């Protein structure tokens, strides 16, 4: 098991190294950050002075090396726009994104699991069709439109839930969490349904029924655990997406998350912030994928013993 984790870490490090070069170049391709920072009346000397102050006048290679050397220790430099250490901005924003993503994934699971299993058990009936349409609806509407309608109707008119920000405790998680969660339900439900269909045809499910095991236990204990692997992979991938790029929902619900930090970084050409967010995204994806692999081993003993 340890050998497996080590080799995966090595691979992620290689990927991160490549990504760091890509993002270093991409960030600078976005343009000149000074346009937003310096006033209109700034003279060419002011621009030169600011470039020197921010260390942007050094050759690219030198800038890249100092960026990587410091990034390894978690120091992503100073944000050009906010003049504050980027690490601090990450500390402020990342927990909000993690909590929102966890809440959203909770909603996804609580919708997709019952829908997926029941749709499989009652394949071809009305329930199956309705479950499919409800799930696909989630993916057929742009999330920002769903968010705005929810804000306008549920928060604005009906006033049941807070409209934005994360200051109102759990209640402020409900609307953004639901919007994000519902979007992911379709894929997960589809995966679970096809997985369950395959498992329910298997010999060991037949044997369970022959043993006189209650149908409910056959479905939710014997069958479900075998259909979990692809669902767990899917949940892992979408969890990282929810954490890192829920820009649209974060914007509508004024949620101080990582997504909006990336958006602010890019629109103000804030190189250190862009680099930090993309690297953090990659690390989150790597960590989530690794934990998903470990989850495989928990679910399927064959994998546990194979490594």
């Amino acid at each position, binding site marked *: 098991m340890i050998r497996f984790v080590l080799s995966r870490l090595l691979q992620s490090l290689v990927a991160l190294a490549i990504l760091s070069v890509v993002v270093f170049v991409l960030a600078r391709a976005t*343009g000149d950050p000074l346009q937003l920072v310096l006033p209109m009346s700034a003279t060419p000397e002011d621009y030169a002075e600011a470039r020197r102050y921010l260390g942007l006048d050094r050759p690219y290679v030198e800038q890249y090396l100092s960026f990587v050397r410091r990034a390894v220790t978690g120091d992503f430099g100073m944000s050009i726009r906010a003049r504050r250490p980027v690490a601090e901005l990450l500390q402020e924003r990342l927990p909000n994104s993690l909590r929102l993503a966890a809440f959203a994934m909770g909603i996804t699971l609580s919708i997709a699991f019952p829908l997926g299993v029941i749709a499989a058990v009652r394949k071809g009936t009305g329930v199956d069709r309705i479950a*499919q349409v409800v799930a696909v609806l989630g993916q*057929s*509407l*742009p999330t920002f*439109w769903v968010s*705005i309608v929810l804000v306008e109707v549920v928060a604005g008119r009906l006033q049941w839930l807070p409209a934005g920000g994360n200051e109102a405790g759990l209640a402020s998680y409900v609307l953004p969490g639901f919007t994000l969660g519902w979007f992911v339900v379709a894929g997960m439900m589809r995966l679970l349904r096809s997985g369950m269909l395959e498992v329910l045809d298997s010999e060991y499910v037949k044997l369970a029924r022959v043993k006189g095991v209650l149908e409910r236990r056959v479905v939710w204990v014997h069958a479900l655990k075998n259909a979990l692997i692809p669902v767990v992979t899917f949940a892992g991938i979408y969890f990282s997406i929810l954490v890192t790029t829920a820009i649209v929902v974060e914007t509508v619900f004024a949620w101080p998350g990582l997504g909006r930090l990336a958006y602010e970084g890019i629109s103000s050409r804030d190189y250190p912030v862009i680099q930090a967010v*993309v690297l953090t995204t990659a690390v989150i994806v790597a960590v989530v994928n690794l934990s998903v692999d470990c989850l495989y081993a928990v679910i399927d003993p064959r994998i546990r013993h194979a490594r």
Partner: protein
Amino acid sequence: MPAEPVTPDALPLPDVQVSAAREARGRRLPYFSLGIVTLFVLVAILAPLLSPADPADQSLRNRFKPPVWMEGGTAKHLLGTDRLGRDMLSRIIWGSRVSLAAGVITVLIATAFGAAMGLVAGYYGGRVDVVLMRVTDATMSFPVILLALILAVTVGPSFTNVVVAIAVILWARFARVIRGQVLTLMGLDFIAQARIAGAGAWRIITRHLFPNTLNTLVVLLTLQIGYVIIVEASLSFLGAGIPPPTPAWGSMIAEGREFVTSAWWVSGLPGLAILLVVLAFNLLGDWLRDTLDPKLRQL
């Protein structure tokens, strides 16, 4: 031991007619989604003929005119007008052309590139497979929206930007699924057979492997077209989608989002259009997957 022969009709049980209807329903064509998709393609192709007015022709005086069936609506603008007084019906009709084009082109590029990578990785395996798969994973972890934003900010938002930004990430999904399938195909004897018969790598990939992945590709293609149209809409919301004045459903919804209650039709109607089309593509994709390749598990 009953010696005398037991004839079948001795026992008066009713001969229950098994409901064939229920069995049939699962199989027939998804008329709803097929209908919507064909309608959508037709409208996109015949846009110039169908569109009552020039989508870009604006008249600020009669902006926010409600659809004809609401009071204050005029027959001149069946579905009302938008923020700049442009005819909604024409913009939705022309918008279908842009959205279809964005969806189809992006997905075709992603399929071509992704399938190629998947086939090569699956066929050669070993180091080639590991390297290509690491590249695939790295791309998949790069967020689509960030890339699109960077492109939009660097060279300015445009149709090509949207297509490039999404295709550059989307191909990884195809590559991953096709590779998985090719690996299973490689295990089968008919590949060994082809090799024994002296077929080279290229022949095997194109003659034997690729045709077998067609089913999966078709399913993925249909499912992803819906996804692209939705992503384009989100990009327009962030100002990185297909830019004005080109009429595209995504930007129309984004522009009308402030008037969700006061002038609901400005973002409501294109929203409905996107909902119907993406729903149709997704349901069609599901149906294709159920009939062509039930075992398929894809993202």
